[in-house]
């Protein structure tokens, strides 16, 4: 077949699963860098720092629970991305600080003062950065790399829901306005309906 890349039988230095997407126009090395940056954003910029943010939402148990859903779902995203990085021939930096510094989104550090409004604003902008980061992966892989596209679109689904949650909560808390997200709480904390329950990687 004309468009089948040549990988010799028994050759373990190349992957057909990589060469076919390269042949279709994916810059695999760039894609790996973007996935590492997005993995760092999910793990270091949000999952880690959301752990702290949720601690400071006392008196707002509903906000705390929703922050927890976002936190756990970002962890699910991290778990989903890492296998794909290695499948593509990439790897994670063997240094946590180097990994943190690769993140494409700002670390969601506890704001000062840590008011509910300030925390919700930070959560909202963090989710927006995640949406922009994942739509970039979708654009890069659409019609060329169905496996990465499927993963990115699952994650994007949840990031879009997270943005809607924090718009609703911030509008209520800061502006006294009702801007419904259209959603209700997850069935279980961090349910991750797109990225976990139908996951293709099952550690």
């Amino acid at each position, binding site marked *: 077949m004309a468009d089948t890349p040549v990988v010799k039988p028994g050759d373990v230095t190349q992957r057909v699963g990589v060469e076919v997407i390269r042949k279709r126009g994916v810059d695999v090395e760039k894609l790996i860098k973007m996935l590492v940056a997005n993995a*760092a954003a999910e793990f270091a910029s949000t999952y880690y720092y959301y752990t702290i943010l949720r601690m400071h939402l006392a008196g707002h148990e509903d906000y705390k629970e929703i922050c927890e859903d976002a936190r756990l779902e970002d962890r699910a995203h991290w778990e989903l991305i890492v296998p794909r990085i290695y499948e593509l021939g990439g790897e994670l930096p063997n240094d946590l600080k180097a990994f943190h510094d*690769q993140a494409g*989104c*700002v670390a969601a550090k506890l704001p000062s003062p840590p008011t509910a409004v300030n925390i919700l604003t930070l959560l909202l902008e963090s989710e927006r*950065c995640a949406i922009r980061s994942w739509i*970039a992966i979708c654009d890069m892989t659409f019609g060329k790399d169905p496996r990465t596209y499927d993963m990115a679109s699952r994650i994007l689904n949840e990031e879009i829901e997270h943005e809607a949650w924090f718009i609703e909560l911030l509008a209520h808390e800061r502006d006294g306005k009702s801007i419904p997200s259209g959603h209700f709480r997850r069935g279980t904390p961090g349910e991750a309906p797109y990225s976990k329950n139908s996951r293709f990687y099952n550690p």
Partner: protein
Amino acid sequence: MPSHDSSGKPFEVILETPSGAQVIVVQAGEHIWDAARRQGIVLPAICHQGRCLTCSGQLIGPGEFDQTDSVSYYPQDREAGFILLCTARARSNLHIRTHTQIGMREHRKQHGLPAPYA
């Protein structure tokens, strides 16, 4: 540094893009990337936080700009003339080469500074 031009004066910014030079007007308080978009020029960007370096440009000649809205910008970046357009405000007329993200990432790596997507 104030986060907006106290005089309210707009500035003229020449963008040297891969498809040629474009002249835009940047209003006081407006980010350069937003001004370009408003005038029909879509420049690269992902995070819109002044973090990921995708929107990088580099000054051609002297000029003043305010980068305080960026979450990650270093003195070494300014010394090298790099500007993060998504979160930069003009403080004078400017002449900027756009699409310099690769060069800015190399610059960051050489200085041991964070370089997302590098």
